[in-house]
């Protein structure tokens, strides 16, 4: 089985090295197309029940970053679970490599949200359910990274932080449904409901293209990071020595 062979770090390392440039190029091209689409093919202002001026164009970085923040957390938790169940080395390394990129997208979602909230709501920040739960997701990523680096023994660090990642999974449905506030008196939701079906097709298209670009970027970044981790952890193996003889 080809797929199972790929789960060995020695096989994955050169394969990842070959496909990283492709992911990077596809990411750059799709992000450029997405940006062009978002800035040139969309209306400057939105009317309707939620009028927006030019600042709504933050949507093309805000929503894809927020989606990636949640998706990468799911990926992180999935690799952690696979690692705990099958005890495979590469799964934990993949989980580890996913966390920093996920944290970056979560930060970008929060940052761009603030710069969108200021002109549209009149405030940089509000303890709205969606904003608060996304902030907690950011702390989960930071907590995962901190816990992993705080434990010296890599195998124990892998297992402990994997458990944290899986427990933190409860935040994903909370973030997802946080815009559906049951009682407006209990939780004042500033954050807009998602209304993809009512969206102008060009806005939706630009958003989806950007999301795809961010996803491809994530592959490139995560594979780059996992390659470094593999080298560090397998430094004593023969295949790493062969690579070192060739490359240094």
């Amino acid at each position, binding site marked *: 089985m080809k797929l199972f062979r790929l789960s060995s770090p020695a096989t994955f390392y050169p394969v990842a090295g070959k496909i990283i440039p492709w992911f990077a190029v596809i990411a750059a091209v799709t992000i450029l197309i997405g940006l062009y689409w978002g800035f040139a093919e969309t209306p400057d202002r939105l009317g309707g029940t939620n009028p927006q*001026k030019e600042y709504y164009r933050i949507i093309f970085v805000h929503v894809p970053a927020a989606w990636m923040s949640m998706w990468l957390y799911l990926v992180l938790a999935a690799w952690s679970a696979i690692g705990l169940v099958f005890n495979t080395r590469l799964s934990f390394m993949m989980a580890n490599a996913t966390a920093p990129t996920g944290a970056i997208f979560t930060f970008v979602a929060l940052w*761009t949200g603030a*710069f969108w909230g200021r002109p549209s709501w009149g405030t940089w920040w509000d303890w709205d359910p969606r904003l608060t739960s996304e902030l907690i997701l950011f702390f989960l990523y930071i907590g995962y990274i901190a816990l992993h680096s705080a434990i010296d023994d890599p195998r124990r660090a892998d297992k402990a932080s994997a458990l944290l990642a899986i427990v933190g999974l409860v935040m994903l449905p909370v973030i997802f449904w946080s815009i559906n506030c049951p009682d407006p008196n209990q939780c004042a939701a500033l954050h807009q409901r998602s209304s993809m079906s009512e969206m102008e097709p060009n806005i939706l298209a630009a958003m989806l293209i950007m999301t795809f670009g961010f996803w491809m970027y994530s592959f490139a970044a995560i594979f*780059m990071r996992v390659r470094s981790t593999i080298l560090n952890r397998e430094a004593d193996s023969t295949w790493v020595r062969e690579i070192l003889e060739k490359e*240094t």
Partner: protein
Amino acid sequence: MSLTDFFSQGGYAFFVWSSYGMALLLMLLELTQLRRRHRTILARLGRLMRIQAQRGTQ
């Protein structure tokens, strides 16, 4: 649409470009940091291997 219109974003340039700028900055920083880290590890492990090889021959 002129280039000035594009950069001014209807007077919301600060908000729009701060958002895109931060995303671009962090992604570029991440990629350069990852490249540098990989090269450092390769160099360090290579050096380590050569030292061990020298000790082995002595």
